[in-house]
């Protein structure tokens, strides 16, 4: 006899809760309508294309319907990891990414610390405004500037180096594979150093000034203060950004390499993105290109997940 009573009791308890929930939804009707367009949009443009990953497990032919496609399992992935071409672009991607990351971090932090030491407000502000400028230029413009600065006839880099006597004849910078990664790294620094420093400058300004005063009384000089107060003060933001950026290790970019690369340096300039573009859209090998894309996404997600976990362990804020 006890059982039915219990059920009735449960129902009675659920009933008002249900109506409350219903009323809650009703009141939120407008909120739902407002978020609906963007939801549909995100589903369509970000989530729906994942269906296309099926191509990587097929021998995809655009003329055939989905049912007619030939399924090949992991063949495309096996080919990818035994293909010298792919391993080369993988090496280039990781190499350039690592260079960009290290250079990007070090230069931005140094720039932020040095700029923070500038006492004249107007001078500081002007320098900062100038330093943002290249961030707003497109890679088309930046690579154009890089190419003309490095050119053999009248390029400013060669002219300066010649005048200083460091080199005796102009160097064909963009035709030497050994310089390519460095040029890409330097271009990134030129474009983004000021922009990347924004976050660090903000972190430095939020350091408690009394720390510096106390250190001064204790006889600390400028370098002591930078080393023992400023750097530890921005440590947490540096760690967060560093971890977050590790997740982007396969995102070496596409634009710079595509725009600055040429036939002579192709073995050192091509990244995974260019590989995908070349095999997929230019040669029509959609399956292989999709497989390369999947590899990139899966590695990125894994790294970001790991980075998130690591960030939590460091006691920093979550990234997601």
């Amino acid at each position: 006899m006890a059982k039915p009573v219990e059920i009735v009791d449960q129902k009675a308890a659920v009933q008002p809760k249900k109506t409350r929930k219903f009323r809650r939804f009703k009141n939120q009707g407008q909120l739902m309508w407002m978020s609906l367009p963007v939801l549909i949009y995100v589903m369509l443009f970000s989530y729906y294309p994942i269906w296309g990953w099926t191509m990587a497990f097929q021998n995809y032919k655009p003329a055939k319907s989905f049912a007619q496609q030939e399924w090949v399992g992991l063949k495309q992935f096996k080919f990818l990891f035994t293909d010298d071409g792919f391993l080369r672009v993988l090496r280039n991607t990781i190499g350039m990414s690592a260079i960009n990351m290290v250079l990007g971090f070090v230069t931005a932090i140094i720039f932020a610390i040095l700029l923070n030491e500038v006492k004249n407000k107007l001078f500081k502000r002007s320098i900062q405004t100038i330093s943002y400028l290249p961030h707003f230029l497109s890679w088309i413009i930046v690579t154009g500037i890089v190419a003309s600065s490095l050119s053999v006839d009248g390029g400013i880099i060669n002219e300066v180096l010649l005048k200083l006597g460091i080199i005796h004849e102009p160097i064909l910078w963009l035709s030497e594979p050994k310089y390519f990664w460095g040029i890409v790294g330097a271009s990134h620094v030129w474009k983004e150093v000021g922009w990347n420093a924004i976050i660090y400058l903000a972190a430095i300004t939020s350091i408690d000034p009394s720390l510096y005063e106390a250190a001064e009384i204790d006889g600390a000089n400028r370098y002591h203060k930078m080393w023992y107060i400023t750097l530890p003060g921005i440590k947490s933001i540096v760690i967060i950004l560093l971890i977050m950026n590790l997740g982007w290790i396969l995102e070496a970019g596409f634009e710079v390499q595509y725009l600055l690369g040429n036939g002579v340096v192709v073995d050192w300039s091509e990244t995974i993105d260019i590989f995908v573009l070349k095999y997929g859209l230019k040669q029509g090998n959609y399956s292989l290109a999709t497989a390369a894309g999947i590899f990139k996404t899966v590695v990125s997600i894994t790294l970001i997940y790991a980075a998130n976990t690591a960030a939590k362990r460091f006691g920093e804020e979550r990234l997601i």
Partner: protein
Amino acid sequence: MRKRTVQLEPAVFGTINAIIMILLAVVTLYPFLNTLAVSFNAGLDTIRGGIYIWPRIWTLQNYKAVFITGTVFNAFYISIARTILATVLSLFLTTMLAYTVSRKEYAFRKPITVMIVMTMYFNAGLIPYYFLIKDLHLLNNFLVYIVPGLVSAFNMIVIRTYIGTLSESLIESAKVDGAGDFRIFMQVILPLCQPVLATVALFVAVGQWNSWFDTFLFTSSKQELSTLQYELMKLLSSAMNSNSNPALQNGADPNAAKAMVTPLSIRAAITIVASVPILVVYPFLQKYFVVGMQLGSVKE
């Protein structure tokens, strides 16, 4: 002795630091000033070399040549159209979504946030995306510039964080007065969000104005839809692929030879045309985007 070093040291450091900063500014500005000088210098004279930051033979010929050809003028127009349309639409939709997920009582707040933020960390890849664009009949369609990039997770987070800093009592009192969420959004939130909207507008507009990859991928076979950046890219790649004397190859435009302009000077002129609109605007938005970057890095 010790006292003296203590007094001298800040001055020495300050001077060296100032010199480093000035050098940095020069390195940043020089290429731009050089391009500006080349764009105002007579094309054939530039080839002789020695143009640094001041034109030797002043001329407006390069700019005339740029705008006399319909292609660049049309590309300029397309670039402006896509930038304005996409910025307005994107701001409206992104802010509207940011408002809904900022409402603590909203039932779908969490799932929607997760769904949007996830898009920051993965994408389906180029090939599936290309097929989607193709299936939506967006190839060689002006809408391909506007529609796919409308909502960015990063911008949404920046705006949502900002809305979170607004006083809740404003929204509550509007609710008590009987305003629905849409009305609150339009009449309370949008006006209050101006500072953050200025930041996001700058991000979106710069992204749109500088974009060339979508033109390259999706509309490159339709000249009427070409953008300024894409025209610049074509000039750049033709200049990089030939190391010959740039005056001899006038592939870009038959009028160019008559007007005594070279691809080099045309490129400089287009570079200036393509960068000046942004460079005029960004210094005034500086205080906004610095705050915007900080809001974005806070995330949750």
